[in-house]
């Protein structure tokens, strides 16, 4: 049977991982490739690299990183952060990325989703959606949640699927950073409304939170950063835990 996926997310700035201090283990501090290898050897199912740098050389640095990761890492990985054109994606996929994640650029120009899925196939197009619940309604936000839009989360998610996205990476801004668990109600609605896989993001604090998001949130995969990087949760142990809860994971 298809298993639920556990995905560590690595924030990248100028080709290096962000949060160097106390970061997993000093020997992994800074080098995304070494950290990625560590996770690949320790039961991670996939990896996401999110480039948050804002330099002019960003494109080249990210492409270089993709090539180095593809050379060493034997599990699938997604890259995201500032990707806005078919040309950007072409380079990243040619260099060995399995999927790309687009966010603000898809909101600004939704046709980009159609263009990417037509050219490269839906399977490599992940649309990331950051949303915040304001007065009971889930509104899509941009720029890491800083800028509000008028888009309703569920309407936008349906449009994204229709335009050819292969997966949705949903981050709840209400939950992100709280370590109080994922936004399972919204996740379950997304998972029921849509027929493409949903990746849960934002709020992971305990192993139980992962079990909850797979069961109550009906998520297909769960993404987290700090709980893994700061060794609060080790993925092999998390998988043992999920297995005991009768959630099928790769072990």
């Amino acid at each position: 049977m298809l298993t639920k996926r556990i995905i560590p997310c690595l924030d990248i700035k100028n080709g290096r991982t962000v949060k160097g201090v106390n970061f997993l283990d000093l020997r992994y501090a800074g080098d995304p490739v070494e950290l990625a290898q560590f996770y690949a050897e320790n039961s991670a199912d996939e990896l996401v690299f999110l480039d948050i740098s804002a330099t002019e050389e960003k494109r080249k640095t990210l492409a270089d990183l993709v090539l180095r990761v593809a050379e060493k890492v034997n599990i699938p990985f997604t890259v995201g952060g500032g990707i806005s054109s078919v040309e950007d994606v072409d380079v990243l996929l040619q260099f060995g990325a399995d999927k790309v994640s687009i966010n603000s650029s898809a909101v600004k120009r939704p046709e980009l989703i159609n263009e990417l899925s037509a050219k490269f196939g839906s399977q490599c197009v992940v649309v990331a959606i950051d949303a915040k619940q304001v007065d009971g309604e889930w509104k899509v936000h941009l720029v890491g949640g800083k800028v509000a839009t008028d888009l309703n989360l569920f309407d936008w998610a349906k449009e994204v699927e229709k335009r050819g996205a292969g997966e949705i990476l949903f981050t709840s801004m209400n939950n992100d950073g709280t370590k109080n668990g994922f936004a399972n109600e919204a996740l379950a609605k997304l998972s029921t409304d849509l027929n493409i896989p949903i990746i849960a993001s934002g709020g992971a604090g305990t192993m139980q939170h992962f079990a909850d998001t797979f069961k109550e949130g009906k998520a297909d995969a769960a993404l987290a950063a700090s709980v893994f990087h700061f060794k609060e949760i080790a993925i092999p142990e998390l998988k043992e835990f999920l297995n005991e809860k009768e959630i099928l994971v790769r072990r």
Partner: protein
Amino acid sequence: MKIVIINYGAGNIQSIKFAIQRLGFEAKLSDNAEEIQQADKVIFPGVGEASSAMKKLKATGLDQLIPQLTQPVLGICLGMQLMCKHSEEGDTKGLGVFDVEVKRFSNQVKVPQIGWNQISNLQTELFQGIKEQEFMYLVHSFYAEKCEEMIAETIYDVAYASALKKNNFFGVQFHPEKSSQAGEKVLENFLKLEIRNTKYEIRNTKYEIRNTK
């Protein structure tokens, strides 16, 4: 050993090249008929849509060349599907190496299937040392039906063939290059095939299918 990855502008070729490199071999990308024919081992990759991929093959005559190859050939993902008789995707006539129909998953399940699923009923040397119910990484919306040529089975929506074999032709629906150590083992097994089976033997004898269960 000369390993050629057929390059026809479809798919994540770099990852396969790197996976082979991690196993200590070098692979060359090529769309040249002579070079492909002379290789000890041929990998036929593919990601994307079936009918447009088949058009690319036809444009270069590779659709004629591939079914005539005599050395071990491994089709991966869409590569495997294109080696089948016909695909529902874009109503595409395949290369016909495998006598099987490729169908779309129903909407009872999420499509595409993305992630790690299990392979079972493993047969042939390709799965030497791979345990039953091993996990492999799959990304696909279409599947090959169960058939005589099936050498591995996976369940998603239905039970389907996640690997096929006929004579010197192998096909895997999963991505060995992305399936951690288990996937690399499958690739390594494939690379080893020709060491134990010379081209001549593969061409002329149907070597025994051994069940590794």
